[in-house]
């Protein structure tokens, strides 16, 4: 990884701020549906997929909630909403990040990329997406956007990983369908597609 901020540091940072690991009793509070409290600036601008978006964000709102429920970017999935599965993985300044485990308010100066932002303007799939199609990497597809984003992060940091390196880089993404072999085939094919 070439970035200053690793995924682990992101998670640690969030745990310290007390907003991670939303459980049954808390997760609704993180989805940003509650009314203005007035104490914290709520209307903020964040850079998502190259566009500055104005969005009304509750103080305790996670990035995954903002993306899904405020910006309609439902490609980012919630599998656990507490930093266990990777379904919500997006890129923050090129680093694969669990969007369920960071607060949107901490994203004001960040560059956020979601699975919706990967296709080229003319609609061509990103090489990782194309490779995943060719290798039939997804099964149920629910973990797929997260797997795609982790693979993109890997290839930006290391354009020619070994399969073993890819396996480690992708290991924050669970696939309950067990399609790991096919995702790794996809990553290795994406290396070739460049």
């Amino acid at each position, binding site marked *: 990884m070439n970035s200053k901020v690793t995924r682990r540091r992101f998670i640690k940072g969030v745990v310290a701020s007390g907003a991670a690991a939303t459980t*049954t009793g808390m997760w609704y509070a993180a989805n940003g549906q509650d009314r203005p409290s007035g104490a914290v600036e709520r209307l903020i601008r964040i850079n998502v997929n190259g566009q500055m978006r104005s969005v009304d964000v509750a103080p305790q709102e996670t990035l995954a909630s903002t993306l899904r429920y405020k910006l309609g970017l*439902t490609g*980012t*999935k919630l599998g656990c909403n507490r930093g*266990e599965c990777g*379904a919500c993985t997006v890129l923050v300044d090129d680093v694969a990040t669990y969007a369920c485990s960071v607060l949107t308010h901490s994203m004001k100066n960040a560059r956020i990329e979601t699975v919706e932002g*990967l296709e080229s303007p003319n609609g061509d799939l990103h090489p990782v*997406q194309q490779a995943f199609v060719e290798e039939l990497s*997804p099964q149920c597809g629910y973990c797929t956007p997260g797997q795609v984003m982790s693979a993109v992060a890997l290839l930006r940091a290391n354009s020619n990983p070994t399969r073993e390196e890819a396996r480690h880089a992708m290991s924050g993404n669970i696939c309950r369908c067990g399609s790991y072999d096919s995702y790794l085939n996809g990553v290795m094919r994406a290396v070739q597609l460049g």
Partner: protein
Amino acid sequence: MAYMHIGKDFVPPDVPGKVTGRIKYAEDYTRDGMVYSRLLTSPIPHARVLDIDASEALAMDGVFGILTADDVYPDGEPQSTGLKILTNEPTLVGEPILALAAIDEKTAETAISRINVTFERLPFVLDPLDSLAEGGPNGYPGDNNTFVFRQGFATEKWTEDQVASFRAGNEPTAEAQQTWSLGDLEAGFAASEFVYETTFTTAGYPHHSMEPRSAMAYWEDGKLYLHGTSQSLTALADGMAPIIGVPKEDIVFINAATGGGFGQRARAGSIPSMAIPAKLSQKINRPVMMRITREEEFTIGGARQGFQGWVKVGFKPDGVMSACDIYIISDNGGKGGGGDASSAADCIDVLYQPDALRFRGTSIVSNTGHRGAQRGPGQNQIAPIIAPIMDKAADALGISRLEIRKINAPRNGDVAGPRQTPFTSAYVPESLDMATQQFDWEGRQSRRRQRNGSKVIGLGLGQGYHNAGRSGMDGIVTMGTDGRLKIHNGVGNLGTYSYASTSRAAAEVLKMPWESCDILNVRTDNHLPITSPQDGSNSIFTNTRTMFGAATDMLNKMKEIAATDLGGDPADYDVSNERVHQIADTSVGYSYAEVAQRALELGGKFTGEAELPEELAEWTQISVSRLAGSAFMGVYHDPRHEGNPPGFTVTCCEIELDLETGKYDILDMVTIADSGTIVHPQGMKNQLVGGAVWGIGLSGYERHLYDPQNGLPASTGYWQSKVPTYLDTPVKIGTGWVDLPDPENPVGARGIGEPSMGAVSAALTAAITDALDGHHFAAAPITADMILNHLAGTEENAVPLAQNNFRG
């Protein structure tokens, strides 16, 4: 046979949507005026609701109403172990008591916190053997601990001595609830040279599908629109309509993709929670979204049945399994249950063809979540228990581990199971040969138990089985005047791509380029035929039959129209290049667009208005009646097939086990399938590698843990219930298939989704046993701490045979 589509890879139409995030799962939808539902669930494992006071909650701003068990079951709750929509008699922690709808989830949750529910605590049990013992707690309503088919709740007790003797490793002496047997067991053991006897446990554990079972519903013009999650499409809607209480013609189930099912979302009865937003929406007249959290998914999402069992197996000097006697107590959980135990015995009979076999089984409650079908229910729990016994027999009799499996392998013409059903075809010896050659099994034998520092090599060979095909379903294909083939497919989309691969059978019959075909699925108002639930590895077999049949009906109608209009006999016609034409003179014929136009002009049977198959299911009849007259139609009802279409797998693996940590790396793994003709190689490979990951979880990691004091679940998330990750699975898994056609399927196909797991679990457990000089844990999973305790000579501190506790 040379096929145009069968056996060739293609891009299933939903794949681009999966890699771009565009495909929608239930929770991705929204609707104007949509409000949100939250659940109040039982905080205790067994209770009775005495009173619900929701007055304060209902008076809150932004609260629209609640739904209780009294609303959904005005005539009283069903007295069964089945999952209920809502209940006043919870038998597990997390069971939904009521649902509340509000303007947003925070308001809903705040309102729920203001509802006062008075519970009467009732005894609960986590270990079925505790309940089985005289005087032990009973976890079902009415102070019962078992459920007898057609009789209802009942109580089953052993003496304390009988339970203690079983826990001490002895054959259970109490009469079993269920039994079946084949052959002469006594003679089988008398003829045995090697006899092995052990008690065993296998853990139940959650399905943990990645997509929580969120659902959204609204009503419009008297019709219910339900966005949900399921392995099946029409089979789900067909079963869900009566649960919700809506006529079948008035439910539209919308389900483009499902984030994993693994047996738990195949049927309406295993996912009745989807009725909650449907009924709330009806009550408050607004669209209702019910988002389900990971923890809620755990508590209502189900688990595999766990086993506490005893097995005795005998082998003749020539290696033939002469007798198998098996007794299983299966854990029914607080809800659900299943036939896993009998299926386990059946699996032994299938895979090893013993001369004699006796099955005895009893199912007992534990207040530990819902139990239901999970990938290979029964077959896969028993696979890792038996594989090391095969190796022990081989070693004792001086036969190779491969040879003893070949000696006992099922073959074409063999029969198995309580009804001695013949296989439709079986190529297990061929699969064993292919797997061991691809893996170089013989060449690697010299590496067995080789030490390298603290590490030691183990080799394992395993087999898996599940019956893999049904019949009796319906098929519909239509064609408009554009000449495109519309394949109406109700299979459901959970990631096997069988909705698409079975559709290829229709394209095959009509020699239709894939680009000229449209699959209609995603929502049931696409006029879909009834299908079998997408479970039990059946879809490929079942639905290639219906798709093939419907397209053949269209083909015959094409020929009839052409012969009537253009002269000759229908038998004089064939199809190619999207035309029906005379065989002798291909210039005489109609394009598909033209023949569809003629069909519309002729009407009647050509457009589904007459001469329909009499046995069509009600669901299919509704679809056909809505389509009738609008398009050229092929309709088919599939008759029943003969025999048992099996899915078989064989796996070889090599592990390196670290004796200092109890952990192991899987250095290499090869899995080979015998599942008839392969329809979709990439999809097939995915089922094999996916099943492998599940097998690794079963053998090594996945558990169902409960706090013994309060009965609270401890494995509600991915970190407490370890699902295998990239790093727990091999860097590469070798796959292959024997690819020999099955005669009971028009394209030769049989299923594979479930056996792919059993063979891997068997091979991995055999390899762990091998690495530990043959130490047989007789358990699944075998965790690192169990290995370390064994190596240290430390007694496990758990109660023998106990399940659902903090063992290890």
